[in-house]
């Protein structure tokens, strides 16, 4: 599949009476945004705000982060099966608004995490301190079921991102890059001497606030399958996950999956990037076994030489990760895994909940239990009400001077297991 990705760099966001993108500045009408968000009757109200890098602003509790994109040519639309009709995406032309993100925030459940600081020490850890953020904070209607409301906020975020993306449809991208993978036979002919490499992505799939959707299908109901990595770039995988802020994959990370980008960079030079394989992380152990068996089987059937496996979330996915690694290695396919660690506040506990000798090539996103003090910031978008209850925050989280003592696990994207960041540990 061949996808041309046009990048349009956004330098500023401003509220305006009319929505448009002009000279790299996104002007958005709050009213229009509100109308898009409130299409769902589970959402009682929504407020919008803009947070810019370097500002003394804290956004919390964050649910999802989304990069606006628009499908300009080719089948389907962005977020297929979710807000666009089901159609295979990944070919043609897509434009992406770089340097900005739509952030959904606000309470879904009575405990909730996810902090984005736009300045200070917290900003060093979250990748979303570097983007111009259009933040939407939703409130549910009285008596809305948690499931229904979670879904409503999730979809509202995608609609708003799509609305913003649509503003770029007729623009000229600042930069264009072509991503293309080959069919099996083509690839064998074109790159007979290059190692065949795939990307195995594990998707969180366990229940409310722990779900991921592929073309709108709940990932816990899939068996492992192959995709063109360009499909992912068109929003074929979206997040419904808002627990474990530090190591869940917001939709933004799926759209900009760093493993895909970095494998494409080597594609045709040192490797033949064959495809992406997606698998899940279910609760039921027999599911874990089936999925890891299948993943290894697919690797074998594709005659792969090597794979990179990425994880998502805390605890039980360690088991999926190790099972995948062990079984794929047993098929003679060289494996590198990406994870993060929970080594305790002192860094001395066992980092993973599972281990195997086959996992001899590990990349880590760092210890999520590390404590960090976040100073009081001038403005909070969302609410601090729940901050004392967020994961990793202890009873004296909110200190006398208004600063927060928290573990990295509450910071959105801090120890991402797709290798999105530079944080690591030894």
């Amino acid at each position, binding site marked *: 599949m061949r996808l041309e990705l046009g990048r349009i760099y956004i330098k500023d966001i401003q509220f305006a009476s009319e929505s448009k993108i002009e000279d790299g500045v996104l002007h958005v009408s709050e009213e229009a945004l509100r109308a898009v968000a409130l299409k769902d009757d589970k959402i009682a109200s929504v407020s919008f705000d803009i947070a810019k890098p370097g500002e003394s602003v804290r956004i919390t509790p964050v649910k999802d982060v989304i990069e606006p994109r628009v499908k300009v040519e080719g089948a389907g639309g962005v977020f297929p099966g979710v807000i666009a009709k089901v159609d295979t995406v990944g070919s043609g032309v897509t434009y992406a608004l770089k340097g900005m993100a739509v952030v959904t925030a606000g309470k879904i459940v009575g405990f909730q995490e996810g902090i984005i600081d736009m300045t200070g020490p917290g900003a060093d850890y979250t990748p979303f301190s570097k983007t111009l953020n259009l933040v939407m904070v939703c409130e549910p209607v009285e008596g809305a079921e948690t499931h229904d409301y979670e879904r409503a906020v999730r979809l509202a975020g995608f609609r708003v991102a799509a609305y913003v993306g649509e503003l770029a449809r007729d623009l000229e991208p600042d930069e264009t890059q072509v991503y293309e993978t080959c069919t099996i036979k083509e690839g064998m002919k074109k790159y007979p001497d290059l190692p065949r490499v795939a990307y195995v992505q594990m998707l969180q799939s366990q229940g409310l606030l722990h779900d991921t959707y592929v073309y709108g299908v709940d990932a816990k109901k899939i068996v492992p399958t192959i995709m063109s990595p360009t499909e992912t770039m068109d929003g074929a995988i979206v997040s419904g996950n808002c627990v474990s802020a530090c190591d869940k994959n917001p939709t933004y990370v799926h759209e900009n999956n760093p*493993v895909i980008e970095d494998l494409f960079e080597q594609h045709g030079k040192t490797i033949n990037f064959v495809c992406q394989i997606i698998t899940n992380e279910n609760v039921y152990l027999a599911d874990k076994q089936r999925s890891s068996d299948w993943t290894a089987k697919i690797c074998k059937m594709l005659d792969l030489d090597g794979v990179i496996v990425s994880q998502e979330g805390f605890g039980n996915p360690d088991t999926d990760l190790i099972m995948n690694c062990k079984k794929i290695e047993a098929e003679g396919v060289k494996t590198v895994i990406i994870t993060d660690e929970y080594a305790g506040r002192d860094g001395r506990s066992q980092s993973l909940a599972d281990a195997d000798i086959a996992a001899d090539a590990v990349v*880590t996103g760092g*210890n999520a239990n590390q404590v960090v003090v976040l100073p009081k910031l001038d403005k909070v978008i969302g609410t601090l009400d729940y901050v004392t209850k967020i994961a990793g925050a202890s009873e004296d989280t909110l200190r006398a001077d208004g600063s927060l003592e928290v573990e990295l696990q509450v910071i959105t994207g801090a120890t991402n297991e797709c*290798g999105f960041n530079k944080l690591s*540990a*030894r």
Partner: protein
Amino acid sequence: MAKIKVAHYINQFFAQIGGEEKANYPAELRVGEIVGPGMALAQNLGDEAEIVGTIVCGDSYFNENLETATAEILDMVKELNPDVFVAGPAFNAGRYGVACGTIAAAVQDQLGIPAVTAMYDENPGAEMFKDKVYIVATKNSAAGMRAAMKKLAPLALKVARGEKLGASCEEGYIPNGTRVNFFEKERGSKRAVKMLLDKLAGKKFATEYPMPDFDRVDPCPPLKDLTHAKIALVTSGGIVPKGNPDHIESSSASHYGEYDITGVDDLTEEFYETAHGGYDPTYANEDADCVLPVDVMRDLEREGVIGELHHLFYSVTGNGTAVASARAFAAEFAQKLVADGVQAVILTST
């Protein structure tokens, strides 16, 4: 500001006294002197610090008189009253490495003076002391002196100032089991791709998180003569005298038990029980022999099947997978077993 005072420890070889034939050279304090590798150390320490004295000790002298030598050297360090204690580098010299580790750990624990040392990562001293003192990783021979000092000196200054240290790969110390976060130059995905390319090409690559405890030890040769062998019992099933006199914790125990069974033929309900919290204790409390078979071993001893049942048994609590602390315990009591002339061990686990 006053200069940081450094005390330096080296062996007889690096003090140019002699090789193996001089390894019995007793501990000696040279106040105000910089000896051998101390020159390179002083150079790398720069203007901020000065070496206030060097302690020289033969490797055999140290290892054969562990307790007295340690005490003597601690007194010398006290006299120098440094801000930091530096031992080595020991490179691949095994006894020198063990001496550096032992004395550096003792200075730190008993005198409260920060200490660092340096050696090759396969030096036995590294395995024994890497989680007790910071050990700079060096090459396996003195040819790596320059490179070693370049890392050792700044680390010594940092610990002297009480600064928070970065990750092992930044500071150059041997990973010590404490995970420390830091920012890499490349993002994780890029590092993963690079690692995969190296792995595919059969090149060396360094995992960022070594899987715990998958090293293997070759089996020891079997006992030749059972009828004269002294055999010891060890258990991870937490068997202790009734009342748990040493207060062994039921899980994640901070110490192990060593108990004398001289004259004990049978572990009865009246005198023994389990301190283990990891399983239903009913049976072990009723009859501890079902975890630690003292009764059968005594029969076999009486019948002459085995030479002797060792009069001490060792007991820890902990399940099959929680091995981290148990390892350190076992390393310690295994030495005692060897010293007591034990020839084989039966280890029972629940």
